[in-house]
């Protein structure tokens, strides 16, 4: 059971370290992607908690500790991913921030969604997957390569390429 406890200690270390690292990463000249920061924080806290567990528990069961740690960290990553870039939640946050917690459909369609769209095009340009050519956008070689992989994976798993939720699903 002590191995499970060391897995839980690893989660606590991760929960403390990850936001601190995100905060520091945002203040560097070339900020790392939040996902990479999370991965580094997970590796550091797992290695540290495993070493300390192995040193203090005579019969340290690695997979017992790893199971608790990996489930805790994945739950964190899942919640992080949901709040980081979810368009639906961005709309919800926008509505709740307005007086009376209400907005018009036209406001969402004409302003909020175009803002989200422009934000995502900016991300693609900043990450080197798309580029500005005058007033237009074009994919870079890296963008074409990634898009090709995504399209092949979607075909492999028979996933449509609209990116829309299928509510009959």
């Amino acid at each position: 059971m002590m191995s499970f406890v060391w897995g839980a200690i690893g989660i606590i270390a991760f929960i403390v370290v990850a936001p601190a690292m995100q905060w520091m990463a945002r203040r560097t000249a070339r900020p790392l992607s939040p996902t990479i920061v999370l991965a580094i924080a997970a590796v550091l806290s797992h290695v540290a908690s495993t070493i300390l567990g192995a040193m203090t528990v005579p019969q340290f069961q690695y997979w017992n500790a790893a199971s608790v740690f990996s489930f805790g960290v994945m739950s964190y990553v899942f919640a992080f991913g949901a709040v980081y870039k979810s368009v639906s939640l961005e709309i919800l946050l926008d509505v709740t921030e307005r007086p009376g917690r209400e907005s018009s459909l036209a406001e969402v369609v004409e302003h909020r969604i175009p803002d989200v769209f422009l934000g995502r095009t900016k991300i693609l340009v900043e990450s080197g997957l798309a580029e500005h050519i005058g007033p237009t956008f074009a994919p870079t070689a890296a963008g074409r390569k990634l898009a090709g992989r995504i399209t092949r994976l979607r075909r492999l798993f028979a996933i449509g390429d609209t990116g829309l939720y299928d509510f009959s699903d």
Partner: protein
Amino acid sequence: MDIVPGPAQAVAICLSVALPLLLFVVARATNVRGAGRTFRIGVGLATASFVLACLFLPGERHFDDVLAGALLLATGILLSYVFWSLLAWGFTLTLLTSLVQAGRPMTSDEWATAYMRGGNLGTFARNRLKLLLGSGMVASSDGRLVATAKGTMVAGVVRLIRFVTGLGHAP
């Protein structure tokens, strides 16, 4: 330190690794349509296989082995879902694929039209809003959107998670 996984743990690790293959089989070998339904069936098959393995594998079952196995399988499912949802519903990735499929440089408006297959961003907005309306987080009438008590609570939780994970300010 013992680094050899127990029998249930080994089954869970194998099932987690095999989950993409299961999803491929469900998507290809059945008439199931819809990324969400495919994923749910794949996860159901993996979970059922784990339960059957715990019941019928030879040898004595240990509680810690089964518990750790269940947690490892849950981790594998969550990890697969993160990639699956990006592939199926990822906005930014679909923007990129639509830009590449267009085969020519596009203005911002043309890109939005290409993304929506000739439609406009209103269709996309309504699609994302359906999720909020269907889950009871937002109510709609006469072109107005109002956050419900549930939606306000969820928004508070989202702000809290953003703060705790280092993505936002204090709620």
